[in-house]
């Protein structure tokens, strides 16, 4: 099944659960469904990024391109930014 469709279904269920009833329990269910939809979306995004990284490493191996410190520096900067966001949230 298409991941975008699953995510959309989960988000629809979240909306329906909010409309169908009121109260904290309904809100909690809606929130859980929205979170589930987010996980599905991120799962698909993560898989694609891993595929891209795998292809990049495969090219590196086949072409015997030597890695440079700059290659690692670019990743380090991205990591530092993400780390600051996570720990500051």
């Amino acid at each position, binding site marked *: *099944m298409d*991941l975008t469709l*699953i995510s959309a*279904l*989960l988000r629809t*269920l979240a909306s*329906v*659960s909010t409309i169908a009833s009121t109260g904290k*329990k*309904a809100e*909690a*269910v809606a*929130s*859980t*469904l*929205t*979170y*589930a939809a*987010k*996980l*599905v979306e*991120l*799962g698909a*995004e*993560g*898989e694609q*990024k*891993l*595929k891209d*990284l*795998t292809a*990049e*490493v*495969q090219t*590196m*191996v086949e072409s015997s391109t*030597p*890695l*440079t*410190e700059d*290659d*690692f520096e670019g*990743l*380090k900067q*991205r*990591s530092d*930014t*993400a*780390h600051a*966001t*996570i*720990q500051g*949230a």
Partner: protein
Amino acid sequence: MKRMMFVALALMMVAGCKTVTAPVEVAQTAEQKAYALYGTFVVFEELAASVVTDPATPAAAKDFIKKSDATAKPAADALLQSARQVIQIQSELAAGKTPTEKLEIANARLESWVVAAQPKILALQCAVNPRQKACDDIHNVQIKE
């Protein structure tokens, strides 16, 4: 409500269980493995940043991601530092400024950092995306009503 939760979980299970080749599996040299593993760490750290800033994310999930990132980051950075040393020593060796043994030692140290960092990076990966098969042994996701 419970029926709705079952539907949601069933959909997540259907969406899951895909096997993606890990970048580190195709790498051959120690520095390629380090690049692949650190790159994997960055992919999931960026996804984690997106999850923790989403208002719909439960507080417990945010805390778990924060802890997993706090544990993985020092190991990943040590791995990166070790890879930089290998690259520096390779240039010194090419210039005839250092013995081969020094590179062998640095490579062995880097390989050990790859092994040491891997479970911590996998733990972050699973905190963000628990649907992966590789995460089955790490923890079970519990969604509370």
